[in-house]
C-alpha cells in the first residue's frame, strides 16, 4: 500500500479570530479527556473486561472538540463507529459512557447499544452508527426538521473518508444543498478505510465532490484545534443564517489500530508513518506547545487539569465496573415506542 504522508508544516497557525484563554483551556480539557478515556477503553479491552471491540479516536481529538466547541448545546450531531470522541466533545458523561461500553444498566443506552451506538438526547447526540455513512441521512433529516420547526439548530454529520464510497451521502448532500438545510458535513480523513489507504478507494479530488453540489467546502489540518474551531465557527455561523450546508474536510490520523484488536498493522501502514504522525502531529502535543508558547497555561495549570481528568476517568471506570447489568427482562423492551 502506497500511503503518501504529507507532513504539513506544524508551525503554529494564526487564528483569524481571537480565542479566549478560557476557550483554549477548555480545548485542552476536552481533548485530554477523550485521550485518557480512550486509553482506558484499550485497557478494558486488553483486560478482557469489555465485551466486543472498540474503535479508538486517539489522534483525532482536535476535530470533535474544535467542531463541538463551535456548536450550541441544542445543536445535533451524528457520529460513527469511531464515536467516543464525538460523544464526549458534545458533553456526554464519562461514567455513563463507560457503563455503556461494558453493557451495564446505567449506560447511555442501558447496555443495548455498546461502543458503536451511543446516543444521548440531552446533548443533541443522535447516535453513533456502525453502518458507514449510515448517519448521513439522519443528520440531514435532523437539519430539515430544524428548518421546518424554525428552531435555528444545525446538525453536524461526522464521518470518516470511507463514507465517501456510499451513495447515500451524495443523495443527501444534493438535497441539503437544494433545500439549504442547516447541515455541516465533517469528513475526518484519517487516511485509511479500515485497512486500505483512501487513495486506493477514492477517485479524483475529494473536495470537488461536495463542491459539485454547490456546497462550500473547506479542507484543513485536523490536528490543529485552533484551526478546526475557527473554521467550524465560521461555517456554523453561515449555516445558521440559512445559507445552506457546508463541508469540512479535516486531515488527521488514527494513532491506534482500526479497532482495539488491530495490532499488527505493518501490512497496510508502516511503523515509520505512524511514528511521524505521533511525534510531529499529535493534536494534544501541538496544543500544549501553543498554550505554553503563548503563555496561556503553565505546567502546573496543565498538570492540575490532567489530575482532575484522571480522577474523573478512574471514577468512571470504577462506576461502570461496579454497575449492575440490565435486568434480563429488558431484552424485549424498547423494540417499539
Amino acid at each position: 500500500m502506497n500511503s503518501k504522508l504529507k507532513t504539513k508544516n506544524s508551525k503554529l497557525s494564526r487564528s483569524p479570530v481571537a480565542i479566549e484563554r478560557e476557550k483554549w483551556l477548555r480545548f485542552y480539557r476536552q481533548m485530554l479527556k477523550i485521550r485518557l478515556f480512550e486509553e482506558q477503553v484499550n485497557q478494558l479491552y486488553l483486560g478482557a473486561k469489555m465485551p466486543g471491540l472498540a474503535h479508538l479516536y486517539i489522534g483525532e481529538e482536535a476535530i470533535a472538540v474544535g467542531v463541538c466547541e463551535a456548536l450550541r448545546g441544542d445543536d445535533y450531531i451524528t457520529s460513527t463507529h469511531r464515536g467516543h470522541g464525538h460523544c464526549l466533545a458534545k458533553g456526554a458523561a464519562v461514567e455513563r459512557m463507560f457503563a455503556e461500553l461494558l453493557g451495564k444498566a446505567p449506560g447511555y443506552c442501558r447496555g443495548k447499544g455498546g461502543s458503536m451506538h451511543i446516543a444521548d438526547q440531552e446533548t443533541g447526540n443522535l447516535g453513533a452508527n456502525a453502518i458507514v455513512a449510515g448517519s448521513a441521512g439522519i443528520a440531514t433529516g435532523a437539519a430539515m426538521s430544524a428548518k421546518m420547526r424554525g428552531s435555528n439548530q444545525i446538525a453536524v454529520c461526522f464521518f470518516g473518508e470511507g463514507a465517501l464510497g456510499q451513495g447515500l451521502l451524495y443523495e443527501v448532500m444534493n438535497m441539503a444543498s437544494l433545500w439549504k438545510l442547516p447541515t455541516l458535513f465533517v469528513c475526518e480523513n484519517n487516511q485509511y478505510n479500515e485497512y486500505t489507504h483512501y487513495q486506493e478507494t477514492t477517485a479524483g479530488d475529494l473536495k470537488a465532490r461536495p463542491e459539485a453540489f454547490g456546497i462550500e467546502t473547506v479542507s484543513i489540518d485536523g490536528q490543529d484545534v485552533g484551526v478546526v474551531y475557527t473554521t467550524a465557527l465560521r461555517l456554523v455561523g453561515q449555516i445558521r443564517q440559512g445559507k445552506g450546508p457546508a463541508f469540512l474536510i479535516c486531515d488527521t490520523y488514527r494513532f491506534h489500530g482500526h479497532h482495539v484488536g488491530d495490532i499488527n498493522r505493518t501490512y497496510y501502514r508502516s511503523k515509520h508513518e505512524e511514528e511521524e504522525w505521533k511525534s510531529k502531529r499529535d493534536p494534544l502535543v501541538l496544543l500544549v506547545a501553543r498554550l505554553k508558547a503563548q503563555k496561556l497555561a503553565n505546567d502546573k495549570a496543565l498538570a492540575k487539569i490532567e489530575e482532575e481528568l484522571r480522577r474523573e476517568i478512574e471514577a468512571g471506570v470504577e462506576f461502570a465496573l461496579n454497575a449492575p447489568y440490565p435486568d434480563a427482562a429488558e431484552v424485549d423492551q424498547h423494540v417499539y415506542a
Partner: protein
Amino acid sequence: MKAPTQKTPQVTSAGREITFGQAINEALAEEMRRDPTVFIIGEDVAEAGTPFKVLSGLVEEFGRGRVIDSPISEAGIAGLGVGAAMTGMRPVVDIMFGDFVTLTMDQMVNQAAKIHYMSGGKLKVPMVLRTTLGATRRSAAQHSQSLHAWLSHVPGLKVVVPSTPYDAKGLLKTAIRDDNPVVFFEDKMMYQLKGPVPESEYTIPFGVADIKRAGTDITIVATSSMVQVALRAAEVLSESGISAEVIDVRSTVPLDKQTIIESANKTGRAIVVDEGYERYGVTAEIASVIAEGAFYYLDAPVKRMGAMDVPVPFSPVLEDQTVPTPELNDWCFRLARQVPSLRGGTPGADRQIDAPDVVVQAYQRYSVSGLYCIDLERRLQRKVTDNDTLGGRRWDLKLLA
C-alpha cells in the same frame, strides 16, 4: 423444484482437518485456478484478507486484478457483480457483515434475481455474494443479524447456509459454478471450527440436506450456526436415552423438503432451529413444510426456534437470550415427554428427566467460541473457562485449533 436424488458424497479420506475459514479459502483458490473468469471483489479483501482473515494469501497468488479491494460501496460492488456476471465473468462479491446486504438489496432483489426470468431465459447472472451471519460476538444491532431469510424470500436467488468446513468447501465450489445468483452465508463464529476435509476435489449439490446425526425420537432441523448447537443438544439428549436426528438443510433455496419430511414422519416430533429472526423466518417455512408433509405422523406441534424478535442487543446478559441456543434442550425434553405417541410406543412419555439442570449444563458446553476464545486467551494469557462470558456463543474447545 424437483426432489433431489443425489445424496451427499461422504468424507472418505480420513486424516486432514482444516478450519471453516480455510475451507472457504481453498474453495475460492481452487475455483480461481480452474476458471480464469472467477474474481473476488470487496472491502479489504486483498492484503487484509478480510477482517476475518478468511481470504489470506489469495491476493498473493492471483494478484490485485482478481482480488480487488473496493471502496465501501456495497450497492456498487453488488451492481458490478451483476453486470460482470451477465457478460462472461464469475464474480464473488464479498459483503463483510450480513447486516450490510441491506445495502445491496436493489441489486440483488430487483436486478440479479430477476434478470434471467425477465429476459425470457436469455441472460444469466452467475455471481456469488458471500456474506456472514450470527450473533454473540458482542457487536450489537448492526453487526450481528442473520438475514438469510430475506434473500430466501426472493425467487431467482439461491441461498446457502453451510455448517461445517466440509460442507462449506463443497457448497462454495458449487455456488461458483452455478449459473444463478447465489448468496452464501458464513457463520462468523464458525471460522475457527475445525473439521475433516479431504484433499481431493469434490463438490456438494444444492438442495440436498445432510443427516448430521441419525436418530429415532425427535427431529432437529437446523441451519448454519445452529447445526453445531443441535448436535450438542443431541448428545446431551442421548445421555438421557432420547435419540435425536439432526438434519442440516445446507441450502434454504433450494430446500430439500423430502429429507425433512421423511425424518419427521419417522420421529413424529420436530424442532426447527435457525439464527434468523423467528418471525416470518426460515423456521416458519420449514415448519410449514413439516406440517404439510408429515401432518398425520406428528405427535406434537412443530416447534420453531429462531432468534428473538428484537434488534440484537450489545450487553452479554441481553444478547445471550436472543439466540435460540439455551432453550433448545429444554424444548427437546419437553417435546420428547409431551403427548404419548399415537403410533403405539410412548417415546419419552414415561421418562423422568430433570430437564433444567441438563439445559444449563448443555448450554455451558456449547459455550466456547472460535474467534473470541483465541482472542481472549491472547489477552488474558490463560485458558478460557466457562465463566468467561465476554466471548459469546462458544463451541466445544476440543474443536478448536
